[in-house]
């Protein structure tokens, strides 16, 4: 099977500090790939490089079979249409209500009539169990609610690929479990591929197909959860048995 995302020899740095060092990963269609690693090891940086919020210093990135590393912006926007991104801090627009936030990608990328957009927004709010929060402003939400609202916006267009930076962090176990079930359901119903950064072991156990473990800017392990647990690398061992 051809990878849906292919990162080759990616090096990323902030000023002088090299954060990702000659790193290569693959993500396959319809899988849930979990990116693991210590806080500050560059997981967010990796996601942001893949979706081209930063330009890598070297290396190539392929998404859906196309090399996007130096792609024209117009071309890349077509790819972005198929990608949903959930940022670590939610990144909702503070000046808009939750419902309007979710409507942005729908208005930007589709020709749906307004009544259908409203309906879709309510669909998404219902999926993340925020039925009554549509008319609130982000500043009126709790931390976990903000996260779920951001997820609703990320899946507004039924993306082919969903990047999630710690989607369940800060949620209670019940809501977190429901959210994991939602991710599984989305994958099944919409054929989504998910790239998820998370530290929650229970969450990993529920959803992970494959683990990609980063350490000091390199990939030190790629494989299934069971293989990861049996790994002889001490960093990984300590992660699963702290």
């Amino acid at each position: 099977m051809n990878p849906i995302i292919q990162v080759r020899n990616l090096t990323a740095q902030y000023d002088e500090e090299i954060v990702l060092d000659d790193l290569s990963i693959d993500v396959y269609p319809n899988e849930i790939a979990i990116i693991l690693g210590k806080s500050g090891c560059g997981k967010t940086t990796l996601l942001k490089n893949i979706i081209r919020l930063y330009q890598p210093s070297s290396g190539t990135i392929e998404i859906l079979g196309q090399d996007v590393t130096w792609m024209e912006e117009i071309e890349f926007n077509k790819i972005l249409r198929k990608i949903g991104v959930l940022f670590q801090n939610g990144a909702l627009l503070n000046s808009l209500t939750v419902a309007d936030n979710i409507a942005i990608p729908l208005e930007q990328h589709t020709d749906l009539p307004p009544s259908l957009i409203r309906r879709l927004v309510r669909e998404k709010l219902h999926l993340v169990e925020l039925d009554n929060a549509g008319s609130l402003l982000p500043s009126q939400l709790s931390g976990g609610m903000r996260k779920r609202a951001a997820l609703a916006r990320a899946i507004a267009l039924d993306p082919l690929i969903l990047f999630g930076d710690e989607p369940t962090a800060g949620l209670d176990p019940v809501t977190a479990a429901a959210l994991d079930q939602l991710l599984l359901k989305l994958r099944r119903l919409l054929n989504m591929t998910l790239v998820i950064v998370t530290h929650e072991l229970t969450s990993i156990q529920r959803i992970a197909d494959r683990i990609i473990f980063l350490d000091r800017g390199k990939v030190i392990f790629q494989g299934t959860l069971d293989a990861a647990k049996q790994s002889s690398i001490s960093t990984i061992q300590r992660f699963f048995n702290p």
Partner: protein
Amino acid sequence: MAEISIQKNIIYLSGELEVPSIRSILEQVKNAMTSNDVPQIIFDLSELTKIDSAGVALLDEIKARFSAPDRSIQFLNTPPQIQEAIVSFSIVDLPAESAAIRKSFFESIGERVYKTITNSGDLLFLIADIFYWSIIGLFRRKGQREGSFIQQSVLIGVNAFAIVGLISFLIGFILALQSAAQLRQFGANIFIADLIGIAMLKEMGPMMTAIVVAGRSGSAIASEIATMVVTEEIDALKTMSLNPIRYVVVPKFHGITLTMPLLTVFSDFLGILGGFIIGITYLQLSATAFLNELVTVLILKDVLTGLFKSVIFAWIIIIVACYFGLKVTGGSEGVGKATTASVVASIFFVIVADSILGLIFYFNQPIY
């Protein structure tokens, strides 16, 4: 893409019911519905291969919009995969969102009045707090950042010298130029010195400085404090038992109180310089004549009046900036609003205060 074919009261949908085809399908269904008044309409979904959430929304919309007491709509032969998606995404069985409750006219007026009263209360407390901690802060440095007083003085004062100087020079220059033509008609050329001297020292110097500082530093202070509120930094300070007023505001208060009078003196000086240039060129006065006249007309009280005003203006600027900064609500947009409100309000209050002080000093003037 999805296909639609219509046979009497049966509508067949096939293919992939996804975003790109939704709009046209909805149009065609709408046409079919208006030209058709059979009591039962059946959608056959057996040939659907894929559906996304927009597709489900479409089916919901069709049902909601076109079913009526005398017309029922049914979806039949839904493949299991499609059915699961419909069940997962559909919101048809949920109650509609409740509409927001409208306030009556009197309710909103009452709310306004109540808010104004509580806000003025807050403002008074804030003013008391700021003065209290600023006076305490003169003697005890604990609870303030090291070196922040000097840093703030540089930020508010030193960095504003160039712009205050330039603007004051131009104001003095223009003021003199405009008056020169009038004075000339009466041969009263020498009085340009009186005019510029008094105008700059008592009015324009303090006022222009205050406006520049309100725009430059007032806005910066308001947005800094508002951002600190929004990002919970103020809360964090409180939990570390640091008083936010003391930690954040007091150094700025000291900085602005020290530098505003200095900026004002500088402004006076450059404004008079602007007038001086007009005087010795356009009005052909000698430099000594101009300076002599200036020295005789200006009394120490004028200088002190200006400085007194400048301190009052400084306090207005910082209090207003803190007030709007601390009162911020609603994320990054709130920060922008608080900043704008702070600049507008502080310029407004500076001018109001100037008028009041002007009246007070006017009636206390010795008669020559």
